């Protein structure tokens, strides 16, 4: 079975981003970019499936600018076998990404697609569900455990009230939550090896997909600022402030 893992190049999770003064967007000049953390978890899960002998091949795919090659190389260094880059400049909405991925699925015919549950830049949490809809496949989102057996996947999902276990028929779409696994760091020899692994280049035209956005971003604003308050010296003072000044207890 092939496992396909889409990965996105995003602002590194440790970066505190800044909104541009003219409200046109977020300032990404000279900001560290990395693989979306949830996608690292997705790659890790796919590589573990291969190591366990459940999967034969792990294919990483990214939709993004030429520099998204870097995150694909990271995926290859973590253990993916080959990579596909669909080059698009500028932001691509989840619906368009899902349509492109549908095209990749049509040629690669994976038995399982594992995606990160959301990208930490646009925080949309849509692509996996949309891909599943377009393919008419079963869908298991927010996974904290995946067990494959007998053409089915038993997936434990993180839900608002706790955990939910469902069984989905393969082929399926699974989206990874934080606790699915702890992604490995790529070792230096593996980083070197990754440079020689195949990386295919494609364009949206190859899949007959238009990536024109459906939503227009009118502006990007600073969130309401919160300022530091005061430090109190004792528990008695804290409780007094909460009662009399803040009136919350």
């Amino acid at each position: 079975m092939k496992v396909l893992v889409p990965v996105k190049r995003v602002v590194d999770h440790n970066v505190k981003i800044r909104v541009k003064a003219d409200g046109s967007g977020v300032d990404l000049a000279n900001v560290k970019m990395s693989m979306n953390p949830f996608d690292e978890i997705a790659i890790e899960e796919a590589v573990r499936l291969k190591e366990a002998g459940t999967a034969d091949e792990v294919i990483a795919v990214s939709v993004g600018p030429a520099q998204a090659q870097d995150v694909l190389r990271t995926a290859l260094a973590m253990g993916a076998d080959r990579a596909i880059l669909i080059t698009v400049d500028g932001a691509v909405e989840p619906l368009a990404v899902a349509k492109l991925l549908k095209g990749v699925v049509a040629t690669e015919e994976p038995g399982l697609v594992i995606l990160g549950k959301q990208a930490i830049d646009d925080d949309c949490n849509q692509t996996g569900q949309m891909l599943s809809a377009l393919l008419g496949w079963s869908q298991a989102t927010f996974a904290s455990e995946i067990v494959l057996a007998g053409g089915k996947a038993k997936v434990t999902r993180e839900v608002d009230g706790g955990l939910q276990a469902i069984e989905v028929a393969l082929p399926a779409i699974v989206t990874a939550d934080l606790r699915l696994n702890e992604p490995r760091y790529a070792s230096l020899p593996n980083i070197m090896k990754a440079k020689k692994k195949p990386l295919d280049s494609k364009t949206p035209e190859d899949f007959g997909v238009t990536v024109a956005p459906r939503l227009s971003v009118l502006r990007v604003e600073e969130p309401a600022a919160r300022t530091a308050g005061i430090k109190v010296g004792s528990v008695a003072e804290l409780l007094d402030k909460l009662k009399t000044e803040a009136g919350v207890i």
Partner: protein
Amino acid sequence: MAILLFADHDNAALSEQTAKTLTAASQIGGEVDILIAGQNAGGAAAEAASLAGVRSVILAEAEALEHRLAEPTAALIVALAADYDSIIAPATTTGKNVMPRVAALLDVMQISEVIEVVAADTFKRPIYAGNAIEVVQSTEAKTVLTVRTAGFAAAGAAEAAAPVKTVEATAEGADLSRFLENTLSQSDRPELNAAKIIVSGGRALGSDEKFRELLNPVADKLGAAVGASRAAVDSGYAPNDLQVGQTGKIVAPDLYVACGISGAIQHLAGMKDSKVIVAINTDEEAPIFQVADYGIVGDLFEILPEIERQL
């Protein structure tokens, strides 16, 4: 303008998030129908019918809908979609699971986690863990939205109940996935999303015993919900449904008490809209103090029991 609101409920009762989403729907403007997809969900339907501003309640019952699995639920919503300009749901794990599937089937781009309705086609939503707010306008024939409910008040009760109509659920998609079991946390405390006060613990608690031993008595005295940082959940001190943050629950209580939590961007994303924030931390440089109204620099193993004694 007609709006279909996909309700969050547990068949027996409606969640408060539905009433809050109804407020967002009213701000868009138009007639609102609430969809109750479930099994033996008469209780939830009756509660939905009693909310103010509801034109009608649509009740669809089927075994495959009992736990609102994504495939059959999305198929049901799509079958109803022709009559609506807008389809809206709270950004609960169910809403987040089902709505993008609906959007893709309708060939529409979804607008996720709306925090403000600017106009019927224009919305504000947080990006980058809430460090920026995007104002987006839809050019779609229909809008598909999820709502981050923390910023909306719950709709009130209607004078007269709205009619409840029953529809047949399509069997489409029911063979794709199967519900096995729920392992839901049992607690007598208020739910995180509904709580007025939240006492939240981080990595500093050190073990699940200490987490319970220190936080629960204070939470009990305050009638508070208990929350946790990702580090506390990952370390097994607290169950996953207590996680507050970018990828956990987004909360905005009157009072949020962060105990031994450093204040990472991803944690702040889930609680920085709280009315009053208290931070207890040994490190006076901890970023949590930058958003705290009241900070107390010290050891939570001494401070929390002291708070409990003095309450």
